[in-house]
């Protein structure tokens, strides 16, 4: 049976309405408490996940944003820091954009912002619609559920784990963090939808190098990716860029060693990764602190042998996208575009770009 575009749209809208009922039915309404707003991600059904490093928790918010976007579209907000500062009644130097993420259903963009830079900084979540109009996501009365990552007040006062990345993958929310005290990995896996008081289980991630030395290695950023019909995460460690880890190995309490598939150079911090398909081929796009935006071939990753020898640049081939400089955050916008936060200093633009 062939459906007209109108029927398809109606069917999608109907499904969205049913899913909307399902989501709001499981998430109690009320005031959502955030002590900080950092890493963002979307779970199914338009549920926004917010990493709260100061509050040591993950907040799932029903932002009630499930109207499917029309095909096409783009976004450009020039001078986004100045605009946010004006909205929040402060100067641009008191605004820090912590993360940006695209709602894959509506393609509205969500921004986590700190107003202020001291311990009294106020977290704010904002939404940019397709026209670039910015509005605040009010947390005063919203469907939400929160899970604590820490053990509670008995945790050492000064210890804090900065959440560097979180993603929904196959019924789990995976959370990568870096402690301000011990150097260890603790990729956390939390079943989703969140259950009350389910703080999730830690998974120790190890990294082997040169076939010899193993380190308990914190993961900084990661992205889910299917390799050989099996779900993996492609993860960037703090000490070397890219490894693959099968999701099937990420079991609570387990110890996992990632397989290095690319070393992309030193003095660099991987920031964000997305995967996409273009011309029938799969690619990874990775934003880095000092090595620009890299495009890696992601086909047949199962055929690459683990890197076991010291070489300057090895493994999966990549190219650096020359005209993408100063990219601080990256997310997939649609099948042909990425969303980037880019610029120099405080002058940052939020815009869509064609996938290279």
């Amino acid at each position: 049976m062939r459906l007209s575009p109108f029927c398809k749209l109606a069917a999608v809208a109907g499904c969205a309405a049913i899913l909307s009922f399902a989501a709001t039915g499981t998430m109690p309404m009320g005031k959502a408490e955030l002590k900080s707003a950092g890493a963002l991600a979307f779970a199914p059904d338009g549920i926004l996940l917010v990493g709260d490093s100061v509050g040591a928790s993950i907040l799932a918010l029903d932002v009630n944003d499930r109207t499917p976007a029309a095909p096409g579209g783009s976004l450009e907000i020039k001078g986004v820091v100045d605009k946010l500062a004006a909205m929040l009644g402060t100067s641009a130097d008191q605004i820090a954009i912590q993360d940006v993420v695209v709602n894959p259903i509506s393609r509205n963009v969500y921004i986590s912002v700190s107003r202020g830079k001291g311990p009294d900084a106020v977290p704010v979540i904002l939404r940019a619609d397709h026209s670039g109009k910015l509005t605040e996501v009010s947390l005063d009365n919203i469907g939400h559920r929160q899970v604590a990552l820490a053990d509670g007040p008995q945790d050492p006062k000064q210890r804090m784990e900065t959440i560097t990345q979180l993603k929904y993958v196959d019924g789990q929310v995976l959370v990568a963090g870096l402690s301000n005290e011990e150097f260890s990995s603790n990729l956390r896996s939390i079943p989703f939808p969140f259950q009350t008081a389910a703080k999730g289980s830690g998974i120790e991630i190890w990294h082997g190098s040169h076939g010899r030395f193993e380190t308990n290695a914190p993961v900084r950023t990661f992205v889910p990716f299917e390799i050989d019909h099996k779900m993996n995460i492609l993860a960037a460690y703090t000490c070397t860029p890219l490894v693959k880890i099968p999701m099937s190995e990420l079991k609570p309490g387990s110890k996992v060693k990632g397989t290095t598939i690319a070393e992309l150079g030193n003095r660099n911090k991987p920031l964000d990764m997305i995967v996409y398909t273009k011309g029938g081929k799969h690619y990874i796009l990775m934003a880095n602190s000092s090595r620009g935006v890299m495009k890696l071939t992601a086909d047949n990753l199962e055929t690459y042998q683990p890197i076991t020898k010291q070489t300057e640049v090895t493994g999966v081939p990549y190219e650096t996208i020359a005209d993408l400089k100063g990219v601080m955050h990256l997310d997939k916008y649609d099948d042909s575009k990425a969303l980037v936060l880019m610029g120099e200093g405080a002058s940052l633009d939020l815009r869509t770009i064609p996938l290279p």
Partner: protein
Amino acid sequence: MFRKLVALLFVGAMCGAAQQAAIRMEGGVFRVTGWQAAAEPRDGWSSVFAVYAGEGDIPPVLGHYSVENGLLTFRPRFVLASGLHVRAVFHVPGQAAIEKIFDLPKAAALVSSTHVEHVYPSTGVLPANQLKFYLCFSAPMAQGEVWRHVRLLREDGSPVEVPFLEQELWDRENRRVTLLLDPGRIKRGLASLAEAGPALEVGKHYTLVIDRDWPDSRGAPLAEEFRKPFRVVEADRKPPQVTDWHITAPSAGVEAPLVIDFPKPLDYALLQHMLQVAGPGGPVAGAVAVDREETQWRFTPNQPWVAGQYRLVVETALEDLAGNHIGRPFDVDTFDKVTRTVTSPTVEAPFQIGVRGGVR
């Protein structure tokens, strides 16, 4: 039909009155006086009254509208910052816009008073595979500034390029920040170590410099620059062993501290909470002090010691300066058959509290 009626009522209410309207700001709240607010226009109060923090293509200030005693009132979501150039615009359809500028007074000049209280490790001799520094400040600092204000200099004054993993790791009060030396330049067997070399070289002298112009959370620069000179010795790949520690136990009936001496410095932050004392009655509550350049841990109980058998319970996640854990080095050499890894979360060292005290 209803909307048209509302719009007519709204326009009717404003006719003849907008010319007398004025905008006032009192206590950070904006009000339109001389104009009787009636029904809210179809596009909301923001369609007739908006406040902008600056000029140019900027969105209006976030806030809440209400009608109080007949006056249209706008309360900004946040208290507007000092020194802002604020523009309030009241514009009803068919009438000339009324605009009023409020240049908010600038904050009083800030006095620099915040300073670096201490940098850990305290010692001036560090292993080549040193992993962390903790910078402790006397007052909360501004985030997002670390990498502009911290430098690692060689003896000739030249900077070590990107020595740290550039991820800001603060405590909740913004008074302590952790600098991780790039683990890619410490861990053996990595391309980045071969390519860039280690950040710290054996036998060389370095200075960690914290610039004075690093702003605290008020925006005031530090009272003074801070410098920590140190010398680098051979890498330390030997995991700390509890059996190497010297335990000096006090006597029963006193509140004197239990003293643990280590043969080498351990991680300052982890020493605050990774050692516990358990006695005949269970966990012992007390205060921890770390001294002698992180080679001594002292524990003073809240209640006088009771004679009996005690245990020092140590989390194996405790690290030395190079990130070696109890019983496990930072990077485990899988070819080294002598390497033994400890997998339990804690290890214990027994000691006795006697009538006259004792030493293990």
